[in-house]
Structure formats: C-alpha cells, structure tokens
C-alpha cells in the first residue's frame, strides 16, 4: 500500500582532522510502497558544524529544522541515527511517527537519502 514518508539520513559522525564535526542532514519526502519508491515529492539538505560530537538533542534539532514544513506524518530512519532510542521517544520529540527501517521500500528510500548526504558532504569538503 502506498504511503507518504520522510526518510532521514545524517552523514559526518566522525570528527574531522581539526576535531570538529561537519554534518549533513537530508530529508527525502516520498511516496513508497513496501517494495518500491513511487515518487519523490520533496528534498531538503542542511549542513551544520559542531565543535564537539553532537548529542541526541542537537541531532534532533537538526532533523527538526530539516523536515520543517514537510507534511508526511511518518519519518523513517535507521535506529542508529537516533542512538537506538525507542521509536516513540524520538517520535514524541519530533512530532512525527518515527519508524525504524522495516520494508524494502523504506530501505531503498533510506539508501537514497544516505547517498545524498554522503555525496553532498564530499562535494562540500572538496570546495576550496
């Protein structure tokens, strides 16, 4: 069955040479089924620098900012993105229903989001 969801991915969990963190968060809003991506409706990418490794609250702020204005009710991600906290806890902070990856359709969309953050980060880091 078709459902509209937002896939979240964050790249840059490892410190850079100078010890700071450069993170890219992508939110991809799309219509998916349990197996495939039907259409991509919306894409937002945010970048942010941190002096120290960001804590959960900071990650949640970044995600909130990225998905602002997106209307899909469900947000999907890997559990590790939110420090393996229970879905309902993360959901209540973000004001969305959070679901860690279950279906192939969700995994495919998540992979798309992941490729976007990875590539974006590499490109931005290459800039002079």
């Amino acid at each position, binding site marked *: *069955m078709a*459902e509209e*969801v937002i896939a979240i991915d964050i790249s840059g969990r490892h410190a850079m040479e100078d010890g700071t963190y450069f993170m890219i968060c992508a939110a991809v809003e799309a219509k998916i*089924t*349990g*197996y*495939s991506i039907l259409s991509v409706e919306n894409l937002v990418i945010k970048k942010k620098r941190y002096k120290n490794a960001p804590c959960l609250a900071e990650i949640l702020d970044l995600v909130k900012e990225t998905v602002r204005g997106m209307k899909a009710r*469900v947000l999907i991600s890997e559990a590790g993105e939110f420090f393996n906290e229970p879905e309902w806890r993360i959901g209540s902070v973000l004001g969305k229903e959070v*679901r860690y990856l*279950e*279906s*192939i*359709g*969700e*995994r495919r969309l998540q992979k798309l989001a992941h490729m976007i953050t990875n590539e974006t980060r590499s490109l931005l880091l290459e800039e002079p």
Partner: protein
Amino acid sequence: MRAIIVARKDPRKDISEDLEEMVVLAESAGYEVVGTLVQQRSIDRVYQIGRGKLKELKEMIEKSEAEKVIFLNKLSASQIFNLTSELKVEVIDKFNLILEIFARNAKTRKAQLQVELAKLSYELPKARVMVSLMKRGERPGFKSLGRYYDLYERDIRRRIYEIKRELSEKDRISEEVRKKRKEIGGYLVTLAGYTNAGKSTLMRRLTSKRVISDDKLFTTLSPSTAELRIKGRRVFLTDTVGFIKDLPPWMVAAFRSTMDEIFSSDLILLVVDASEDTKAIRRKLKTSHEILYENGYAGRLITVMNKIDKINEEELERKIEELGNLLHNTVAVSAVSGEGIDELLEKIYQELPKWRLYELKLPMSRDGMKLLHRLYEESHILQVSFNEWISVRLEAETGLINKIENENGVEVLEYGAG
C-alpha cells in the same frame, strides 16, 4: 511426538517473540508442545540451565510424558550429552529443530543433500567432544572405541566433501536449465516466505488445473519446479525452503544455491499466513524483507495473504490496514478453497514483460514447419492458417521475432501492442 520447549534467557532480554516462533516451528515439525520452561540466569556450562530448573524440567517430563526437549539456546556437545544423560529423553536445540523441518520438506535429492550438509557442518565440531565423553566410559559400550573419534571426524569430513561435489554438479545443471528456461521466454517465479505460510499448498493449487508441460527436461531435474501457462505465457514456478529468522552462517552456506535461486528470480510471491495475528505477520514480513534486501533481490514482488478462509473479511481488511507499510502489490487468497487464485494469476500475468502482437508469414516447407514448432514453444500462438504459406498470428517477445525475421522466406507484419 510430545515435546517441551526450554529457554534460558539473559536478564533484561525479551525473548517472548523468539519463544512464540519456537512453538510454531516445533508444531510445524510435527511436535505437540506440552509445555514451555523459561529460566532467567547466566549460562550454565554443564547443563545450560541451573540445577534447580533441571529438576523441575525432569518432573515436567515425567508428568507430561514428553519424549523430547527442545532448547531455544544453542547447546554445546557436552551440554547435550549431560542433559540427555540426566533427563533420559532426546535433547535438541533450535538449530537441530530447523534442520528437522528442512529435512521434512526436502523432497528433491538436492534439497536432501543440502540438509545433510548443514547437519554435518553442525555435527563436525561436536564429534570430537561427543566421542571423548563417550570414551571416558560414561556410556558403557563405547569404551572399546579407542580410535572412534578419529574415524568419526574423518568420515564426516569425507562425506562433506562428497556432498559438496555432488551439489556443485547439480548446481551446474540447474543453472543450465534456468538459462534454457529464460531463453525460451520463460519467466521464473519463486514462492518464498516463512515456513508454514502455505507455499507448497499454493504451489499445488496454482499448478493443479493449468496446462502443465510434460516436457521432461524441465520437470525431472527439479521436481520442486513446475511449469504453468498463463494466457499462453510460460511461467516456471519454484517452491523453496522457508525463511527463518537469524539463520546461522553455516546453514545459510548449505542452502546457498537454493537461496541464490530465490534472489535471481524474476518475480517473488512472498506468502504470509493471514490467519496469524498481526504482530506475528509483521515480524515475519520484516524478516523476509530484510533477507531479500540484504541479498540484493531486485526482481518484482507480489505479497500473498494466504489462508483467508480462516478469517472474515473485516479481519482481513484490518490486517491489511495495520500491515500497510510492509505490503506491496497485495493479493488475498486461500490455497485451500481456491478463493483469489484467479486474481493472483492475473497479477502474475501483469508482472510479465509485455509481449507484442505479430502476424508472420512462414514458408510452406520443412523449415517453415520447424519454425512453427519453435514458435509454439517460445511464444503464444493465437491463430495459424495454411495456404501457399503458413500465416501465424501470435504474441511474442520482440527479440524472438527479430531472430526469426532473418530466416529465409519469413515475412513479419507487426501488428501492435500485445
């Protein structure tokens, strides 16, 4: 056979789902589960569970007249030995149970070899311990077997080698058959899903009243594959071993080629038992999706909600609603009553690569007849008439027509979309 299920759980770990699954597995292996026993504690090296619990288990066995004990935890050889000596009934673990189920379903020579290979791979590390325990004289009758262990381990190794050789020969042949099936425009469909979902029953139902090829090349080599024709299109349907959560690597290795067959098919019918509660279906769908994704499956998918004869329409609708995000291309059927089967066949047909409609003229000659024969094999003939030439109206794959067009005396008048 009456069996008791035993589990030792680490503190704070929730094993209720695993336990539920174990009961279902045991039942599908033909056991009557007469009791379950759970203990929360750290592992006991001798018995896996504590001495007090062992006593309780012994009493339970006597009372219920159970003939077998099945552990959720993986047991070491010495634990099996100690437990058997103490309880006086057969003791197996989850992996032995899974192997029993696979063995029950292994109807082909290849499947039987795979099961044996998995069994032996599991036995091998145990052989040494088992024999040294026996040699210690704890079991009379084994004392004199001085070199038993060496022999035993060597025998197992030799047998593993033989099986692997036979299997690789079999794999080579089935690979060729698969290629051939694709070449003649066949479409490879696999039934996948958890054990007990009803795959075999559905397979029988789908192939029962359809025209089944008596082409021996295709049926004898792999009896778990059957051919059916849907509106003239050839579909090769294969039944497979059931998915089970967290299969250990040695087991996956033994069934590798069968698994690869699933992951390289054109279409998977993912079968679930719709009469189970939503939580169980969800868990199984999740695991199935995970397995398919991790193995890079990229074909098409139909979700089959089976056994709808056991539930009412309202319940079915509610479950479909609740399972929403895990569903794709869903069709509800009963393999037993036949309800929904036509719809499923239509869905399979919709997934087939589109063929086009053609009108051909073949020369009225031996060569022309040969071509006609080939077309009967590889396309869907709608009409044939014989005049000065043979005119044929058919649905076919473009590639086939391109090949035939180059033959002497053949004329192709394209007709339109199929």
